[in-house]
């Protein structure tokens, strides 16, 4: 019995499943595999980027449900236009550009349609009104409250930034992108990125300071 298990183990190491094999490959190889017709490769790209994109878009638009919809839309567009992607460039930059554009459109539509903005705000109220069910009971309630309160304050501070500053701020501070990558994602020149980032950082410090003092 033990010998049988060991044999299976060795076989699985020698021939890992296609999914596991994809996990070890770089983005560009996975993209090439998808373009060659391997649908598992696309599932791997979704696996790699779903959480990162969800957080990126959520931090820009501040509405979780809408962020989930937009992430779906990003992947639909990626799937549809992958053949147009210039493979000499970074896939992550390309997918973030699509996400950034969708988030920008969302904010633009909201500013044009106050009803959409109201619905987004209302959704947040409803979340706040919901009782704290299924929270981890190992943590003390006052700790949870404090943590949640601070998180809300800081998220609120980020939302005080103008949206083009917010995108640059999130990309730099939370996604760890380089200035060049940010310039490509936001379709701006390097000087604009630097100036927006400086304004965003100063503004963030200014907004957050009275809340933390």
């Amino acid at each position: 019995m033990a010998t049988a298990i060991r044999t299976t183990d060795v076989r699985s190491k020698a021939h890992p499943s296609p999914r596991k094999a994809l996990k070890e490959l770089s983005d560009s190889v996975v993209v090439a595999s998808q373009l060659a017709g391997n649908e598992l490769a696309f599932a791997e790209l979704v696996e790699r980027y779903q959480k990162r994109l969800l957080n990126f878009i959520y931090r820009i638009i501040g509405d979780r449900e809408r962020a989930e919809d937009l992430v779906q839309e990003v992947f639909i567009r990626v799937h549809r236009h992958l053949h147009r992607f210039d493979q000499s460039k970074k896939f992550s930059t390309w997918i973030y550009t699509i996400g950034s554009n969708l988030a920008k459109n969302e904010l633009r539509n909201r500013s044009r349609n106050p009803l959409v903005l109201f619905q987004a705000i209302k959704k947040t109220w409803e979340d706040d009104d919901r009782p704290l069910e299924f929270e981890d009971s190992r943590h003390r309630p006052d700790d949870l409250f404090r943590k949640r309160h601070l998180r809300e304050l800081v998220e609120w501070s980020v939302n005080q930034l103008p949206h083009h500053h917010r995108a640059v701020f999130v990309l730099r501070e939370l996604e760890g992108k380089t200035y060049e990558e940010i310039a490509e994602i936001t379709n701006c020149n390097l000087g604009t990125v630097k100036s927006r980032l400086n304004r965003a950082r100063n503004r963030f410090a200014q907004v957050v300071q009275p809340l933390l003092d």
Partner: protein
Amino acid sequence: MRCSQFKKHYSEFRDSLITSPVLKREMEHHLAICERCSRHNRAFEHGLYLIREAGDIEPPSGFHRSVMRSVKLNARTPEPVVPAPPAIAAAAMLAAAVAVFVFEDNTDSFDPGAQPIPAAVRTLPQSVPAPQIDMITLTELQTFTPETRIPETDDEEEPADEQASEAQ
């Protein structure tokens, strides 16, 4: 160094992108002596720490499956035709108007070999004599009284048999 100058270079300073050693030293010195800028910097770092500490949000369970399903659903449907935004439509109309103007201008340009365009022939209006109308002078109008009115025509005379019965 002033606080405004410190804030101007704050981002580059944070990312260690200041190449001038003099400016870098000035920034460090200002941060050490200026209470206001020092608080500004501390607030920034604390705020950033809290955001990072709060962590990421997790996609809901089944999100991956849901994404894959919508990708497959949308894979065969053609891309919807997006109507042109008003600005683009206006620009297109303007371009069309300019094109028409330029085209018209070209057709009107002087061509020495071209045949002269004959003048348009217009017929003069024909005078038609007015129909005969009985005119009345002003003095006749002034002397006009109900008694001088035009006598009633024969059509309005009473029938002959009625006159006869009255005579009887």
